[in-house]
């Protein structure tokens, strides 16, 4: 509750033209946003540009923020949208040079299979390979440990839909990570 009041104060200050308010918002939430973006994009570690884009979108839209949810949830919604855009752009880039990429990825994948001794790498790859509609709930629920109510608000879906997606995502992960789960 106190967090929400702080958020409202910060937003109000920003609306009145206090330039330091946005800096405080960035300071307060940039780490969380970056961690979530990193997880949603498949742990690439290089997420500075995405984070910058996320906070640019927040800066543009902050005056329209109505404080119906927490500022953190709102920033997470922006993060999810930006990550989707980022992944789509990356996919387009990859498709443009599909043939070359196919050759490279094939050889590197074979190599990785031999060298991949870290089972967690396999887990992360399985999560990253999930379609966005399953990956996002999985990351938010099991890694970020956010409640289902808030997740459904962030993703803009009903609780039932969220549960269905989580169940399907678990099924896929069970299939992909059968050996690791049985251990």
């Amino acid at each position: 509750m106190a967090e929400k009041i702080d958020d409202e104060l910060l937003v109000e200050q920003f609306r009145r033209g206090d330039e330091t308010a946005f800096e405080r918002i960035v300071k307060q939430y940039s780490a969380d946003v970056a961690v979530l973006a990193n997880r949603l994009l498949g742990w690439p570690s290089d997420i500075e540009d995405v984070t910058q884009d996320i906070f640019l979108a927040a800066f543009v839209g902050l005056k329209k923020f109505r404080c119906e949810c927490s500022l953190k949830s709102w920033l997470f919604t922006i993060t999810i949208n930006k990550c989707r855009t980022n992944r789509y752009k990356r996919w387009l880039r990859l498709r443009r040079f599909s043939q070359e990429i196919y050759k490279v990825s094939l050889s590197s994948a074979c190599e990785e299979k031999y060298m991949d001794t870290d089972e967690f790498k396999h887990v992360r790859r399985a999560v990253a390979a999930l379609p966005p509609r399953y990956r996002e709930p999985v990351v938010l629920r099991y890694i970020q440990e956010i409640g289902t109510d808030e997740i459904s608000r962030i993703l803009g879906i009903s609780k039932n839909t969220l549960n269905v997606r989580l169940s399907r995502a678990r099924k896929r992960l069970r299939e992909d990570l059968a050996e690791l789960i049985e251990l």
Partner: protein
Amino acid sequence: MTEDKIKNLLQQADKAAGRIAPVEVNVSAIRRRAGRKNMIMMVAPLASAAVIMLALSILSMMFRTTEPTMEHRKIALLETQIKQLQARTDAALSLIQEVLDQERRQSRLNELQAQLASIPDPLEEVRKQVDKTAFFLVYQADRLYRELNQTDSAVENYNRVIELFPENRWAKVARQRLTEIENRKI
């Protein structure tokens, strides 16, 4: 059970990926980019409107100054043909109108002739009336002579018929009666 296992596995995998390096968000760069974005949002519609206006004016000038193209010639030819067709149509229409008027006049004339034919000949009528009057006078004279024995009055009537209608058949009858009366007196 499986859900917990998956959760643990995912969290361990996330931890194993290691912490990401602290991200430096450049607020002043964000402000600059936002300002640029705002300016683009404001200027873009104006610029596109200006470009459209410019393109339209160039196009209109091109249309004004260019030589008549093949299409223009075709259009002019088509227009001439349309005018000719229009003139032909007008002529045909006026001819049709004329023929219709003539037909109407002819039918009116026939109608009038029929009406005229139905009117009785006045000369014949007069002749009939004359005949009727002469007959009536002879008939009266006959009655005076034969039924009332007024021979003088009867002779007067017979003479009137002969005087008034000398060519009529009843004048002939009147003469016979007068001859008859003369013969009787003798």
